[in-house]
């Protein structure tokens, strides 16, 4: 019996965002947009979903006069991401 893949992470853009945030302390919206190649609107929607699930936190502030939105992965998010990767590995090892 395979473990169920977290449906929230099983989406291309949300998974990409989580993969970036898992490797850094924090990343701002512009960086995430550049790295994922997503549109601002789509990225905002996916970030909202991850925030609502408690996987990431979003902090809005300013850097000088420019608005800046900073995202960070939470311990819940790290746990979910780890679980997702482990589940993927089980799927892949079973298919070999």
């Amino acid at each position: 019996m395979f473990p169920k893949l977290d449906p929230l992470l099983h989406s291309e853009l949300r998974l990409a965002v989580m993969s970036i945030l898992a490797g850094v302390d924090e990343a701002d919206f512009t960086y995430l947009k550049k790295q994922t190649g997503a549109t601002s609107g789509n990225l905002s929607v996916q970030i909202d979903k991850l925030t609502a699930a408690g996987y990431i936190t979003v902090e809005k502030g300013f850097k000088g006069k420019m608005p800046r939105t900073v995202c960070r992965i939470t311990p819940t998010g790290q746990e979910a991401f780890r679980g997702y990767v482990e589940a993927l590995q089980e799927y892949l090892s079973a298919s070999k």
Partner: protein
Amino acid sequence: MTAQQSLQIITETFNKSRKGILRNSAKYFMLWGALLTVTSLVIYLLWHFTGRPQWNFLWFAMPVIGYPVAALMGKYDVNVPQNEVSKMLSGVWRVFGTFAITLSAIAICLVPMNVSLIIVIIMGLAECMSGVLLKNWPIIICGFLLGVCGAVVAMLVKSEAQLLIFTLGGVLLLITGFIMQLQNK
């Protein structure tokens, strides 16, 4: 989305981000490498042609120029985050800088000592540590050789010729920066 595609997204995104961060760190190696090369050469030439060791005070121009330039470069990097490796690299070289400046000040003001010997050893160590963090054998070996050979040269060679060890150290930092950029293209 299949399990394989998911894993591919994770690996690709993670690697792309990691490479971008390390490419960004490479700029700082190049900045300090260029500054060290130029400063050591200028002091060497001034000392050599005037015979005045007082030109060594120009070393303090290096942090005075380097830190504001690094801060200015950091302003433009506002969107590039830090990862564990870039944070540790930054930490290693900050510790090196603190030791180098403090010991130089002590040697000038309080207790005369062979500063070149001490600094070249800790510089080689910092370079070695950078190589370990970057998992790059050429950088590890260069750092080791800089520390060990530099220490021997610092003991054998006197006066202004010692400065050329730091020119070599500066070139090594520049090479490290180039390697980091090439590794993370």
